[in-house]
């Protein structure tokens, strides 16, 4: 359901909500297609989220109360914007820190050093 040129599906699967939440925290409010385009742009086409990955993940975030939605009429269609809630902001922070810690641990375990720019 993802198209990813460089990374395996398993690597992304567990981090999709982290990616979406943190994007929403940075941008404030986004709609589905906009999220896919932002990810594509930021990763230089390395990660392309399909609707099959994105919409179930957004739905789940909404169910958990981490995002709220707002429908805006656009001609003959509706655009659904997603905003992070207070809980979503906190979850984004926690998940980001968790990932950073995980990366550090993996660097040690796999005996790799991240090249700093």
């Amino acid at each position, binding site marked *: 359901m993802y198209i990813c040129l460089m990374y395996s599906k398993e690597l992304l699967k567990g981090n999709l909500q982290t990616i979406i939440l943190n994007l929403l925290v940075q941008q404030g409010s986004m709609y589905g297609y*906009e999220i896919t385009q932002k990810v594509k742009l930021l990763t230089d086409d390395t990660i392309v989220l399909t*609707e*099959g990955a994105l919409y179930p993940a957004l739905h789940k975030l909404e169910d958990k109360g981490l995002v709220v939605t707002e429908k805006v009429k656009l001609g003959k269609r*509706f655009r659904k914007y997603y905003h992070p809630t207070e809980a979503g902001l906190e979850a984004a922070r926690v998940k980001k820190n968790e990932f950073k810690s995980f990366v550090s641990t993996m660097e040690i375990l796999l005996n790799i050093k991240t090249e700093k720019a």
Partner: protein
Amino acid sequence: MIELNSNQTAIVKAVIEERGLQYGPLKDELLDHYCCLVESYIEDGKSFEESLKSCVSDFESSDLKAIEQIMIQQSKNKLTMMRNVALLATVVFLITSTFLFSQKTEIPSLRPVNDTYKVSAGFGKQLHPIKKMERHHDGIDISAPIGTEIYAPANGMVVKVKSNDVYGKHLTISHSEGFETMYAHLSEIEVKTGDQVNKGQVIGKIGNTGLSTGPHLHYEISKEGKKLNPADFFTETKL
């Protein structure tokens, strides 16, 4: 920024409808998503028809039915969870209500002896029947033949079973809210210390033991140590 007109939007909508999707929220979001996709192709220089064709081939590769199933299942799980939470809340409420209701039956309310047998001595100041001196009668006396059943007036626990020269065979039951009931001059005691008793349960039989002028039950009710008039608690009688 290019935006599809009503006709173009309707065409994209028809393409989505052809996929046979049922889940409304997903259909609405996909409509906006694919309209945006078509718009991006148009911005790249393609015509609407070419853009739609590219978009269709893009979402041919997406298993929309599978996406719909995932989202429907997520919704069902949420509904099931909400239903389970509601059910659990109802069960907890019923149990709590039952418990609270049953708490009320732990305050003495049942007459300990059938009301065929009358109160022969009331609560408060009176002449001691044996010592012939004024006394404060701490309970009431109910005269009845030896062997007449005595009933627990409410749920409780037997806290004392004893025998002495004054009260003869006697027992005390502890109830909720600090209430205690005491039964003296019994001929038989049917319970022992530590027993849980239910309202209406036979706890003993009327006798003439201890300092007694005739077969009767001496019955006391106290709340947190303060003696009260048992007759004020006779709201029910065993038939």
